[in-house]
């Protein structure tokens, strides 16, 4: 996992503005706090797609919506992934808002960069190289309500400490669930 300064700035809406030394130091500080506090964890399971019934094969999960099936057109198998940075960084960001709001917004972006980078690493560990990009519920017409079923299927509360609230939000907030399609070999 690598927290790229460039990515942190991108999440902060940076467009080439001049950065003074104080801010520059703060960005470095945020990145190093983030690196120290993240406890990345993930769980991955592989499934065959049951395209006829629009389900994840061998499970009870129907994948709803059309966009996801369009996205997975060229795939007959997928990885289901859940990843998180854990609670410590979450608590640190909350604390920063009470102490130093500037640091807090940078930390938040650094953590976003961290979770994305971590999931990139998880994908890199898969033997297949031709993968579709991570597709999460809430994208397109894939209803956010399926978040709960995904967490249930991967048993995320027990496996990696990721919980889904009644409004379908993940806690810790810097957590992601996604489907990654394995593109069929031609």
């Amino acid at each position, binding site marked *: 996992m690598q927290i790229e300064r460039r990515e942190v700035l991108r999440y902060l809406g940076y467009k080439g*503005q001049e950065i003074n030394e104080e801010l520059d130091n703060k960005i470095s500080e945020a990145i190093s706090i983030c690196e120290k506090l993240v406890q990345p964890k993930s769980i991955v399971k592989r499934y065959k797609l049951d395209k006829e019934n629009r389900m994840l094969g*061998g499970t009870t999960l129907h994948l709803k919506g059309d966009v996801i099936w369009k996205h997975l057109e060229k795939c007959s198998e997928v990885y289901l992934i859940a990843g998180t940075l854990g609670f410590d960084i979450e608590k640190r960001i909350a604390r920063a808002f009470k102490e130093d709001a500037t640091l807090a*917004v940078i930390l*938040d972006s650094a953590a976003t960069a961290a979770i994305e980078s971590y999931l990139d690493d998880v994908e890199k560990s898969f033997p297949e190289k031709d993968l579709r990009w991570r597709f999460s519920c809430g994208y397109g017409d894939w209803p956010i309500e399926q978040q709960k079923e995904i967490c249930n299927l991967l048993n995320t509360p027990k496996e990696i400490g990721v919980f*889904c609230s009644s409004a379908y939000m993940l*806690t810790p907030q810097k957590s992601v669930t996604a489907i990654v399609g394995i593109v069929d070999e031609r």
Partner: protein
Amino acid sequence: MNVREQLKKGYIVFDGGQGTQFQKMGMLPGTIPETLNVTNPNMVRRMYEGYVLAGADVITTNTFGANRKKLGSHEEVVKCVEAAAKLAREVAKDKCVALDLGPLGELIEPIGSLTFDEAYESFKEVVDIAKPFVDLVIVETMTDLYETKAAVMAVKENSDLPVFCTMTFMETMRTFTGTSVEAFALTLSPFVDAIGINCSLGPRQILPIMKELAKWTDKPLMIQANAGIPDAQMNYPVKPKEFAEYYKKYINLGVQVLGGCCGTTPDYTREIRALVDSSEFKPREVHVPCAVCSASDVVVLNQDSVEIIGERINPTGKKAMKQALLNDDFDYITNQALAQVEANATILDVNAGLPEIDEKAMLTRMVKHVQSIVTVPLQIDCGKPDAIEQALRYYNGRAIVNSVNGEDKSLNSILPIVKKYGAAVVGLTIDERGLPKSTQERVEIAEKIIKRCKEFGIREEDILIDCLTLTVSVEKDQARKTLDAIAEIKKKYSVKFVLGVSNVSFGLPNRQIVNSTFVKTALAFGLNCPIINPNIKENAEAIKSFKETKNDYDKEFFYKEFMDSVENNMNFTVEEVAPIPETERDIFYYIKRGLKGAKTACLKLLETNDPIVVINDYLIPALNEVGDEYEKGKIFLPQLIASAESAKECFAEIKTILAKQNGEETDRGTIVIGTVKGDIHDIGKNIVKTVLENYGYRLIDLGKNVEPQLFVDTAKKHKAKLVGLSALMTTTVGSMEETIKLLKEQYPECQTFVGGAVLNEDYAAKIGATYYTKDANQSVKVANLVYNH
């Protein structure tokens, strides 16, 4: 088997994994296993029977996730739990049935959106349905201490059933949410019949965690390990014989309740049965030290411990704190809490005693707030039994209750509560006769308190005695009486000592020196926990210097130093405050760059300008320039925030001056802000708040996951013309709409502005918001419009 009796004399064998058994019998992944109770009871029966035949003393109902949060409705819960419990009862015959309560799958505030009460009610619902059919309750696989406490209390308060409780830990000895093994034991031992660890790891990895747990509880211990840590194909590596081999070590540790978790089968139960039947039972001997804790941090109080209790979260004699409580200004409390912890306070006192407010409600609110900010344990400072009880109920850890005194009324009403929640307690050496005059009186009252505590089952070492400091300027030898009382009680008892010290110097000039020499002296006489303001440099230094020199001098040396400071300060004058340093750069420079120098520049301006002029001609124009630059993309988010933060300090200065001149609060208008019910994302709300606040608005921040009614009530109470609502998800915009509707009904003159990732101009109009603000800068424009600035 009578479970409680059996715990006094021997072992209990629990069953093993259920999910893995069901999958073997053909259950598809993604199925909620609890639904099988209704859809496929035969499968559940086979699972139960397997464990009964294998020799389990207790089988667990298939109700791990059978709660309202996971199943949706009361009817579903009734159907599922009743079926599971009845069937288990039928299969178990003379064996015992344990009602299984697993986590709700959602987290409690502040990390999650569930409230403690909602969690309690969800567990209570299950307990009420199952209690006619079961012999005990097992609360298991928990990762959050607060949720675990809700579950355990729901059992205790709604049934007479024994309750066993296990949490699941990582090898770091913490749960996912950060609960430590010690905190788990200290907080929940008072409520449970057996306590232990289950799931996540195999018997080898859990052993060191169990050894730690054993040090912190005197309750019977329980283990339900996984069959090792599974590989990617979910194969569990530890086989039944090997599993039982590891369990021998648990038997040697004195663990009494043994079962399996994920990956274990009736074959494992058979091996455990054989192991238990061939093992002789020896009761465990343990002495748990006196310690208090939050969910994560533990403070051990030994007889020679020195721990600072921070005194600042208390409105008594503190004008700013009093004002903060009256204004619902919880940010002020936040700052006090953080500052004290920063200055090495390891316990914080929390007091809500103000005649104008509802102490019971406020104390609980403050306890919940402070425990969400800092991780140090808290001391509940209150004399009203109902307020204490409620605060302890919502406290996520083991607290100190401050205090009981020597009067029967106080002892009889408060000690049962202290016992119920397993808290530590401060005993104040005062009684119906009034302030104690002599050492002897103090010792007598302390002895009475100690005796009564023991009658209620509270251990001597869990009592902290406060020998009361009186003012030394009135009667010089008063301090000595307090000190001698500490030393004398300490000779006979294993109690600890607390003492508020600032009283001692009342009426003297240069109180700090007197206070700090007195702290050192009291520590030398045996004080453990001075209750002080750790942010006063002299106090912190006194404690540090005592620790460094305590072995070099005897207590009389410190006493002499103290008395000298009293003598010397009888005729001492207070020094003038140092002059403000010159500034070279103007205030625009600092604010635009978000630098700390803004405050000094502001003070400089205030020397020659009216405060209102400083606001209107300097601060606001500077912030406006910053806002414009942000809009044009010349600066980006962190720079906007930094500028706002530097202006905040200036506003704080001006506010103080104006308050002195006018005797009242002066701000540009009150705005209530929060993230709506169900939503726990607060970054956007926090950014908007920071920026608005630093434009001189008074922000009442209700936090995240806020009930619609609370927005309305707060806005009305503080006559806010504007309420800001944040929501990040489509799923929570509904509660935003509800909040706006409620405001329109009950407080129509109030306007609203809304923001959040899923909102836009049209959407905002659709749900009835007055304004949509795309960013923090936009919200300033809205506020200016509403308040005519």
